[in-house]
């Protein structure tokens, strides 16, 4: 059942993108094990504000695992030690009384720190804008049976589409590669009829943009898939490679 614990927090504090950062230690008592990780940080911030100090800046929005904002590196894992969840879905019951918890921002050249734990993930938006969409006139609703899509294909596309663009894959990768993200976004369209018109152009444009923005190359280490909160599988990267080669050859 729920009880209260005390934790030692080691948090990365950095005033701005150009400034030097450092770890600062905080001790936090009476943390309910039923509270979420972000509620624990809210609690810390409330105490800091009461002392007249500036709160720890971090991003969050939905707090239910769907927006991808809560980009925290906790004890050496993006989104914390529990598999298949985002930071906002992590609860304090996963920690013990007296634990030291290290919290860092995403560390990747393509995601500069804005302040403390908040990073600029604009690079992902730029990749999306390069091709992560379908542009056709919807018109009236077609007959549902006119374009049959097999369950297997529909499921795979849906699984790829569950990528929330959080950037944990990049943060986990020793090369800072965005391949898992880009492959998920390319796959979700390449598998479905709506995505066919721009299929080749999309693969080329998104990969080009990814390279241009300074993301690293993929060496098939697989850290991305292991840390992805949505369990996006590596097979997406294989599909992206195929899509890209295909698109390049027919250029």
């Amino acid at each position, binding site marked *: 059942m729920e009880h209260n614990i005390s934790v030692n927090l080691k948090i990365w504090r950095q005033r*701005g993108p150009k400034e030097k950062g450092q770890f600062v230690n905080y001790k936090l008592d009476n943390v309910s094990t039923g509270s979420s990780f972000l509620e624990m940080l*809210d609690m810390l*911030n*409330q105490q*800091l*504000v*009461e002392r*007249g*100090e*500036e*709160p720890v*800046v971090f991003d969050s929005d939905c707090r239910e695992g769907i927006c991808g904002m809560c980009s925290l590196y906790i004890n050496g894992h993006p989104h914390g030690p529990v598999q298949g*969840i985002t930071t906002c*879905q992590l*609860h304090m*019951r996963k920690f013990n009384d007296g634990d030291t918890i290290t919290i860092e921002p995403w560390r990747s050249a393509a995601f500069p720190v*804005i*302040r403390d734990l*908040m990073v600029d993930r604009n690079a992902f938006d730029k990749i999306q804008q390069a091709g992560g969409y379908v542009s056709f006139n*919807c018109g009236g609703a077609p007959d549902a049976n006119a374009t049959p899509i097999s369950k297997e294909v529909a499921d795979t596309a849906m699984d790829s589409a569950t990528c929330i663009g959080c950037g944990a894959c990049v943060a986990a990768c020793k090369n800072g590669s965005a391949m898992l993200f880009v492959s998920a976004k390319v796959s979700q369209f390449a598998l479905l009829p709506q995505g066919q018109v721009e299929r080749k152009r999309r693969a080329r444009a998104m990969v080009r943009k990814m390279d241009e923005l300074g993301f690293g190359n993929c060496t098939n280490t697989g850290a991305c898939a292991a840390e992805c909160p949505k369990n996006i599988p590596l097979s997406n990267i294989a599909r992206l490679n195929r899509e890209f080669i295909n698109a390049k050859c027919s250029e």
Partner: protein
Amino acid sequence: MYQMISDDNPYETPMMIFPASHYTMGGIWVDYELQTSVKGLFAIGECNFSDHGANRLGASALMQGLADGYFVLPYTMQNYLSDQIKVARSTFDTSHPEFDKAEADVRARIQRLMDIKGTKSPDEIHKRLGHVMWNLVGMGRTLQGLVKAIDEIEEVRKEFYNDLRVVGKADDLNTELEKALRLEDFLVIARMMAIDALNRNESCGAHFREEYQTADGEAARRDDQYMYVSCWKYTGDNVKPILIKEPLNYEAIKVQTRNYKS
């Protein structure tokens, strides 16, 4: 997912369920072209009031975003832009007095909040406002409760302007200031929601006034008096908004009451 949040296995322990508000109905007034009362400013998706009526299901917000973005705006915005074609491009800059005024207003607003130098963080005051809304302007509403809510919101508002504390600097990335600015808007909206709920002496959709229910506890609508959309015209933070009624005239359908029982 339930297990992830509650740490209980729902196959073994019964799930803990209670109703909670997930949404508020209504939003920014727009015309059929999705243009707001500010000319040239369009509001699409879940921030406007247009599609969902008195109640909406979770995913209808997505539907609204898609429908507004795909089907409506691409056609209606052109109507507005077509009139703008005569405006010289060279005048598209920020050297207009309106820009200076807007900037000065925002700076003054920020400075005002920074200067309060009280003792309560935006989160603390926000929670207090949240409690008032949850308890009195939530799922079940009553005449007395709403009158009380309006008083209590006023109390919170006073606390905000007298005892707010925004740490940090105004010209920095300051999340506390951001929260304070949002909260300032919430105070205006909260008050308007309570006034609106008080005005509507019937139960309809997600608005359940406890005084107006059928013998078996269902919402009792009063179509003879409330067949209108309540649009509230903002005239200042401290002034009561003005009610503009937009009558609901249905031509193609017969107005009915949803009934799950027969």
